[in-house]
């Protein structure tokens, strides 16, 4: 068991890495509610893989479908079991991972054992999948009416056409029809293994008890799974999707293959985004001066396909905004200099935002599930941010390619 502590903030993380590859993190916090999560590195982009000598290609939306069905066991609903214990349970899938979690004020150990148990026991029956397909189809349609979601995926589809990263997490109404019980079992066997698994607990919890329960609670074997990672060349272009919203949503996406660790890359691009597009930036002054936006764009980074930087927001003149975004980024890459004051401010802001976010146990869980990819903890993250230098930001900007995928959704 290893303990990491940041003295300024008193953030503490206890971790243990097991011999079967499983990673466990415990984040002690004085709270009424305790939270635990199991994270599998299996997301919507994991559609091709090798397993036991064969090559598999699963339909889009498979990871998300597995997440839905894992809550139905031979004995009934897992959600109901959690509810009986006084806990709330849920799960989510993104492009790179699936997370199952619960929150409770009582019976933490019983809930924790239930969590470890059910994620290892797939139970899929073809005759029960048809209703699930209707439910997921409804979910897909719900997101079809979400402007920022639609502009985001439109941008990715222009940047990397045919790449799984540009497809919706839940797949499409057509693709999920091709999923059957065998598909789900194969996916579970490939990805739901100890070496692909991280366990995170946060709250007023006993780390030693959690380690003991985890040691005794994992009895799955690792698989022979190997991901088939394809790299897609960036293409670019603009896609406009007609929607009913009066104020269009836009996203501009750029390849950002920085080459350093993905976690640090994410922070570098957040700082870059802050410097270039925050409310104190010249770009925002231009946008708001022209009356084409009222809120600063938001900047995000995902690590799929080598790294993608996105800049998103709302505007009545989205094409004009995207031109400003492109021009600002390229000007910085080809001749800009790092404004030291803006850099210091951006680092301070990022540090404060990370520290504040970690007051929330749910965010602790989701953040640690990302940081775990590089075996980092909160104290190390704080040190990492403090160690970022101006030249790192310039290097990050240089690594963005001059190719842009743009998505616009609105009237």
């Amino acid at each position: 068991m290893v303990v990491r502590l940041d003295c300024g903030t008193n953030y503490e993380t206890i971790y243990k890495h097991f011999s079967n590859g499983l990673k466990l993190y415990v984040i002690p916090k004085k709270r009424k509610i305790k939270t635990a999560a199991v994270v599998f590195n299996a997301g919507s982009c994991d559609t091709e893989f090798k397993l036991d000598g064969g090559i598999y290609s699963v339909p889009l939306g498979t990871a998300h479908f597995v997440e839905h069905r894992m809550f139905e066991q031979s004995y009934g609903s897992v959600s109901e079991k959690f509810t009986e214990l006084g806990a709330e349970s849920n799960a989510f899938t993104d492009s790179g991972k699936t997370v199952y979690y619960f929150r409770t004020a009582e019976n933490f150990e019983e809930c924790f054992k239930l969590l470890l148990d059910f994620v290892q026991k797939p139970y899929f029956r073809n005759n029960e999948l048809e209703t699930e397909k209707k439910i997921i189809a409804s979910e897909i349609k719900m997101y079809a009416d979400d402007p920022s979601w639609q502009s985001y995926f439109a941008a990715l589809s222009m940047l990397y056409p045919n790449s799984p990263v540009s497809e919706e997490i839940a797949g499409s109404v057509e693709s999920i029809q091709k999923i059957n019980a065998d598909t789900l079992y194969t996916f579970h066997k490939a990805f739901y293994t100890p070496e692909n698994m991280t366990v995170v607990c946060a709250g007023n919890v006993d780390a030693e008890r959690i380690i003991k329960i985890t040691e005794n609670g994992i009895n799955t074997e690792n698989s022979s799974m190997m991901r088939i990672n394809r790299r897609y060349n960036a293409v670019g272009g603009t896609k406009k999707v007609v929607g009913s919203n009066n104020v269009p949503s836009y996203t501009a996406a750029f390849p950002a293959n920085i080459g350093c660790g993905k976690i640090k890359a994410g922070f570098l691009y957040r700082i870059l985004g802050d410097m270039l597009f925050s409310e104190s930036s010249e770009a925002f002054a231009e946008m708001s001066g022209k009356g084409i936006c009222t809120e600063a764009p938001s900047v995000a980074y995902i690590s799929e396909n080598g790294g993608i930087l996105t800049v998103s927001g709302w505007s009545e003149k989205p094409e004009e905004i995207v031109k400003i975004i492109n021009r600002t980024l390229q000007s910085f890459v080809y001749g800009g200099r790092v404004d030291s004051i803006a850099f210091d401010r951006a680092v301070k802001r990022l540090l404060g935002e990370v520290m504040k976010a970690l007051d929330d146990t749910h965010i602790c869980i989701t953040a640690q599930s990302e940081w775990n990819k590089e075996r980092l903890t909160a104290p190390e993250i704080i040190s990492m941010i403090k160690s970022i230098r101006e030249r790192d930001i310039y290097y990050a900007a240089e690594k963005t390619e001059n190719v842009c995928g743009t998505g616009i959704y609105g009237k």
Partner: protein
Amino acid sequence: MNENEKNMQYIEVSEGIRLHFYYETDFITNFVSLVWTVSADKKTATTVSLIAECLKTGPDGNRTELDKRLADMYGANFDAQIIQKGGRQLIALNFESISDKAADEKVLKNGIELLRQCVECRINEKMLNQAKQRLKNRLEQKNDSAAETAIERLIDIVYADDSFSVHCDGYAEDISNISVNDVNELFGKIKAEAPTDIFISGDINKETAVNYAEQLVYKRRNPQKLEADDVNITAGCAEKSEGRSIDQSRIAMAYTSDLEPYGKDYYTALVLREILCGSGDSVLYDSVRQKEGLCYYIGGRLMRFRMVYIIDAGIKVGSEEKAASIIEDSIRSTKITDTMVNKAKNAVIRAEGETADKRTGRLNETMNSMLLGIIEKIPVEKMIESISTNDVSKALNKLEYKGKFILYAQKGDK
């Protein structure tokens, strides 16, 4: 600091201005909120909303300078927002920053200065014009949300003559007519007269908190008491529908309860909400989603200041009336059991714990207690434990259907 000093303390700073102070070190942040309360009125709602919108950009409307100032305070959060509680409109100025200890510099003092400048400021034309544009955009975006639209329209028809149906974010059609004089006159009146609450919590001692609160007090004249918030619900049922170019229909339905919004009654109502529409094994989740596959999301909220349940869902096109029928039938045919009640009680206790774990949770509870006139404090767990199956059954039987709004999708597969 002893245990008593660690609990919430209530101090009258000036006439009609109360300080609610909590010493705590469980969070890494310090939090300050200044709340003005007025009665919701269609004639002034937009002006009040514009006041908040102006203050979002700081004391002089210079967003660039405000952004720099907040970044220098380690990305401190500053916001001015409108909150609706029943027939009342609240303007809340909020500031949250990491503690001076975590930052190793004096952050909170700078935050108080920012708030003080906002309280003292006079809104100018530039601030107002920018605020108008932002508010217009925000109202358009709100209207674009099918889910929010369905709920808003439902409240409009069920509470047509009640101030609860006043749109506290404002009305787009009123924006252009409001002048800078209108805004400053109303802002001055609110600061001088409206009931005012200041919340300060974090790693701060009491004397410092009182000192900070005193800095936020504006010149008071003729302080007003809180006006009554009368309920005025439409007789019978109100039903309406509209069409929109969306992929999935939305439905919102209203049911009133005869329970009181405080004490054991309130928590009984929460237990009932949990049973009917609270979670993955609720009655409506099971009947509408799991059995019929008509939706992905179905949920419900209890609007405390009117004790009305609003149930809403995204419904498969062509199944709107069927869904409404299933919701009504499921509510009427539900038999409350001990198991249901025990599970629901655990969920309500957990939700209370989650509220306590949130920075603004205690603030919200304190405001609710004040606005509802709750004086007696009974431990929440005790109240919830005392709720019986019979209590919940009675509450269910007394639910009265009051209305429905459907937003029909006019594109997509049928």
